[in-house]
């Protein structure tokens, strides 16, 4: 930013004060739920229900105690949910990304039979709502005896037509045919050309697709809700939804469950927030691809 000095930069802070104020309000709005969760996960039951300020600490500040409660409740089921979510996010995310990278590259760089038609079908699939597939997939899986297993959640998450679209656009523009041909002339096989030449060039898009598919798996609710009945296989979304239902159903009798849900919500958002912040550099470059073309 240092090189962009001059009159414009100097006048900026004053001229844009109203806009910056507006942004300030927006930031507060977007952060209020986080703030509420951060503050209230420190409270014990009296603090939570005592009628004190709901947006500030009151009573004892007891993060460690609440964390311990969260991870020991019901035989440590919450820890299992987090591990399950991690498994589903990694397996689904990595699997979907590998498939999308291969397919996107294939669509972009080879003229094979039925290519245009197949790609049009994939684009059409972007418009099929994912939830419309859940019920028939469930019935199919129950015939195969796959429901209530981890596969019931992982296998359908491998499908990511948007990832294929993104990879196709990116491979088309970022991997010049000349380089591929040069590699072939030098005697490199197709697979070697792909791994050594194309893949490194496609890295920003690969990270973006990986992040987007992992997030989609981590956030998924409808699919695991339908597929799983054993609560030891639940991801954290379904698990917290279950607690929320139980706690709301017997409103007064479950004060301790409410504080577990609040702490559970806080813990469950931390991994993704860290992932997004640390991988910023990559996904910002990749996200622009989908919008620009």
């Amino acid at each position, binding site marked *: 930013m240092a090189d962009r000095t001059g009159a414009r930069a100097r006048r*900026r*802070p004053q001229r844009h004060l109203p806009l910056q104020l507006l942004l300030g309000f927006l930031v507060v709005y977007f952060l209020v739920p986080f703030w509420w*969760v951060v503050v209230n996960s420190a409270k014990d039951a009296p603090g939570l229900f005592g009628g004190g300020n709901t947006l500030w600490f009151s009573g004892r500040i007891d993060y460690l105690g609440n964390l311990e409660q969260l991870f020991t409740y019901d035989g440590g089921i919450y820890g299992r949910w987090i591990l399950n979510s991690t498994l589903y996010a990694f397996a689904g995310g990595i699997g979907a990304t590998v498939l999308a990278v291969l397919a996107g590259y294939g669509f972009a760089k080879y003229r094979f039979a039925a290519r245009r038609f197949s790609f049009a079908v994939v684009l059409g699939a972007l418009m099929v709502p994912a939830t419309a597939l859940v019920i028939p997939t469930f019935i199919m899986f129950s015939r195969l005896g796959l429901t209530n297993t981890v596969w019931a959640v992982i296998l359908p998450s491998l499908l990511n037509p948007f990832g294929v679209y993104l990879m196709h656009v990116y491979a088309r523009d970022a991997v010049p045919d000349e380089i591929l041909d040069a590699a072939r002339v030098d005697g490199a096989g197709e697979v070697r050309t792909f791994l050594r030449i194309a893949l490194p060039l496609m890295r920003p898009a690969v990270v973006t697709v990986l992040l987007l598919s992992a997030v989609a798996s981590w956030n998924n609710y409808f699919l695991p809700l339908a597929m799983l009945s054993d609560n030891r296989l639940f991801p954290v*979304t*379904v698990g917290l939804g279950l607690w929320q239902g139980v706690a709301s159903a017997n409103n007064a009798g479950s004060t301790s469950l409410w504080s577990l849900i609040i702490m559970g919500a806080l813990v469950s958002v931390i991994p993704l927030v860290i992932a997004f912040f640390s991988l910023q550099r990559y996904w910002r470059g990749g996200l622009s691809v989908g919008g620009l073309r």
Partner: protein
Amino acid sequence: MTLLIGERAPRAQQQTHRIRGKVHLREHLMGWAFVGPFAIVFLAFLIAPLAYALYLSLFQKRLIGGTSFVFLDNYAKAFTDPSFLSGSWFVIRFSLVAIPLQIVVALAMALVLDAVTSLFTRFSRLMIFLPYAIPTVIGAVMWGFLYSRSFGPLSDVFGLFGATAPDFLGGNLVFYGLLNIVTWQWAGYYMIILYAALQGIDSTLYEAARMDGAGKWQIAVRIKIPLITPALVLILVFSLIGTLQFFNEPQILRYLAAGTIDSDFTPNMYAYQQAFALANFNYGSAISFALGGVVFVCVYAFLFFTRKRRSFL
């Protein structure tokens, strides 16, 4: 679809491939080898379920007589079923408000963040995007707390003025309660997509416009917005698909908003209830398939009508 793809004229490739004419079979095979694994998943988890849903939706299971072929009876039933119709009507009304709202908010934020560069705006950009990293279920849980009369700040704030807090989980206000959650959840993501598109615009265009005497406002309206139309179309499609299959947020808030959000609140919730609470898979499949079909047709029609404005596909 081929109309929408906007295929780049593959001149360079054609030349290089012509040179090696006999490689054709090999190229077909290599192409399919790369696309094959995805194609298998695509057939197994998209085409097969769709076909199966269509098949199931043509049958009915009766207590007496077992399962019988009824052709389109389930669809006829769905389109006269008050539960399905009211759910659909809610989702349509909700889309008509939520989608423009999200896009306008996202666009305004993206334009501001694009125009003003400071440490604070960079920080704001991340914070506004943050909700995207939150599972929708957790987002709904969080807002459920904020709306709640026992834990939420609303009663404190309104109490200051001696007023009773509005109940965003009851009555007609639940519409606005959900609207707020959805906007909070997605506006930041759409903002990032638009912002990325804005950053990709060649800034010499602004210089030229400024020379011609255009103000900041004019540059935004006349240059920036038209140039990011593909990105706008993209997020419109995303939000249309997302909102029509509305499920997670109302499903989570159902317990807190007992009596307001019923199990037939949206078509997707109704399909879920039919399939999993009532084990009525045929009717559930019919609703799923009808919903999927309606979404597909809506989005396709939308893309068709906007394709002249440089669609994203």
